[in-house]
């Protein structure tokens, strides 16, 4: 039981970084970005290849972030400069990433077993595998959350938020919305790639297919956070995103424990997200029906 909990927390914290990235595009920029499916493996592959060649794991992780930013840049340019709808631009980056990832890996799968990763130094300090990941994950989530929070409070960050809130207004206030859109996509995909790099080092390998369903996992975590913790300000939202990502992992661990086939997981997640997304609509309908009933009796 404890192992199950620890496992979920450690994995959840790593995926929390990606959830923050998804939040950044979906909620702050109001632009659905599917390139994350590609940039997560771009991050994993970049880190894995460098580490497997004997490179420094921190340097490898840093380059993974840059690779993710590059992916975001491509999506951003396709979307803003070439006027391709955001979803399609994201899909193009995602599809393209698969080929690039196979080139980076040189195979469809690279193993990192027994190699030095970013977690190794914590393990050397006597922490168990799981706890090392939890400690490192906490630090990374806190650091990226804090950095992002500060960024959103700057002039540039405000411009990004204004772009997501009202593009016409943003332009009328002299904001180059193309630039802010591209910037936001780069940061978001950098975070996603960071998750990819950490997950690969945690699981001991990187493969092409580990990105599948990323967006749904990110959305599931995001929606869990929003439904369970209806907070208003960005700071509390960032914290609840981490909680959402961990809770998602816990839910998954529990349903697996209860005997669900691992291959059914994606369907399970997809249905959960679909339900959660329709929840506000259903709630609206019910409350309308309620008020309608009252109004009706008055009219009659």
């Amino acid at each position, binding site marked *: 039981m404890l192992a199950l909990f620890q496992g979920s927390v450690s994995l959840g914290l790593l995926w929390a970084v990606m959830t923050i990235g998804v939040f950044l595009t979906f909620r702050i920029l109001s632009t659905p970005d599917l390139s994350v499916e590609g940039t997560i493996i771009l991050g994993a592959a970049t880190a894995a290849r460098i580490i497997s060649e004997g490179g420094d794991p921190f340097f490898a992780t840093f380059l993974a972030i840059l690779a993710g930013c590059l992916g975001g840049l491509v999506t951003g340019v396709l979307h803003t400069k070439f006027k391709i709808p955001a979803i399609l631009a994201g899909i193009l980056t995602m599809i393209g990433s698969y080929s690039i990832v196979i080139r980076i890996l040189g195979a469809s799968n690279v193993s990192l077993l027994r190699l030095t990763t970013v977690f190794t130094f914590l393990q050397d300090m006597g922490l168990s595998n799981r706890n090392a990941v939890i400690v490192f994950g906490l630090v990374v989530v806190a650091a990226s959350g804090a950095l992002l929070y500060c960024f959103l409070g700057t002039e540039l960050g405000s411009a990004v938020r204004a772009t997501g*809130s*009202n593009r016409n207004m943003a332009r009328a206030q*002299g904001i180059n919305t193309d630039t802010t859109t591209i910037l936001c996509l780069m940061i978001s995909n950098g975070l996603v790639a960071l998750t990819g790099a950490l997950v690969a080092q945690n699981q001991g390998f990187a493969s092409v297919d580990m990105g599948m369903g990323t967006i749904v996992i990110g959305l599931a975590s995001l929606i869990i956070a929003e439904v369970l913790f209806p907070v208003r300000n960005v700071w509390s939202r960032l914290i609840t995103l981490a909680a959402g990502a961990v809770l998602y992992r816990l839910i998954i661990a529990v349903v697996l424990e209860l005997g669900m086939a691992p291959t059914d997981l994606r369907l399970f997640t997809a249905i959960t997200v679909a339900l959660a997304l329709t929840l506000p609509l259903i709630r609206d309908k019910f409350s309308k029906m309620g008020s309608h009933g009252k109004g009706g009796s008055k009219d009659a």
Partner: protein
Amino acid sequence: MLDIKNLHKTFNIGTPIENHVLKGVSLRLAPGDYVTLIGGNGAGKSTLLNSVAGTFFPDEGSITIDGIDVTSLPEHKRAAYLGRVFQDPMMGTATTMSIDENLALAYRRSKRRTLRWGVTNKERARYRELLANLELGLEHRMSDKLGLLSGGQRQALTLLMATLTQPKVLLLDEHTAALDPKTAPKVLEIGDRLIAQHNLTTMMVTHNMKNAIQHGNRLIMMSGGRIVLDIAGEEKKRLTVEDLIAKFSQASGEEFAGDQALLG
């Protein structure tokens, strides 16, 4: 201050819904001119304002603001010279951001955005003062999100944002049309006050003939993509709504006859 020369704009060129909206509009505003702009639906008033703002580029003609040719300058670069208030109270502000953040966005309209803080405490003190001048009690709600404000409060705030950096030209496009009859005059009055205070060159579109006469020092009427009436000074002061309605139908009648003549 604003010099528009022979402006043409056609939407959806080369398609069955091709629409020649601006047919050679020329207009020169002196510094401090406050022009009210009237005309029927589809006359091209918004299209004229949007061309000045750079929402799209004209097909022909030129736009000069204070000696700077902005005809092909992108919208966000032109914003430094312009203040804008739209008809829809949702359009002019970032509804998910707070009052002080919105003002701070407007304050940085002509500046490079850096990694410095988006709003400083010094600014907040100044905004509080300016908001107090609006007499809407907004100075006590600086951290409220814009989405919580009423339409009138939003338009008043958008006016303040539009004039915060003293634009060279202020563009108001039916900015009180969506407001209730009690709020609209208040917002118009706030506009007049800010315009007078900074001596702003202004173009205000309205469908209300009375407002068009009472406000500003010059009145322009558009019909069919052309300016058909331009009244200023003493003549405008003596203008009555009846005069204006007579001139309105006369002008559109002439316009129609003109079209007939062209066809013939």
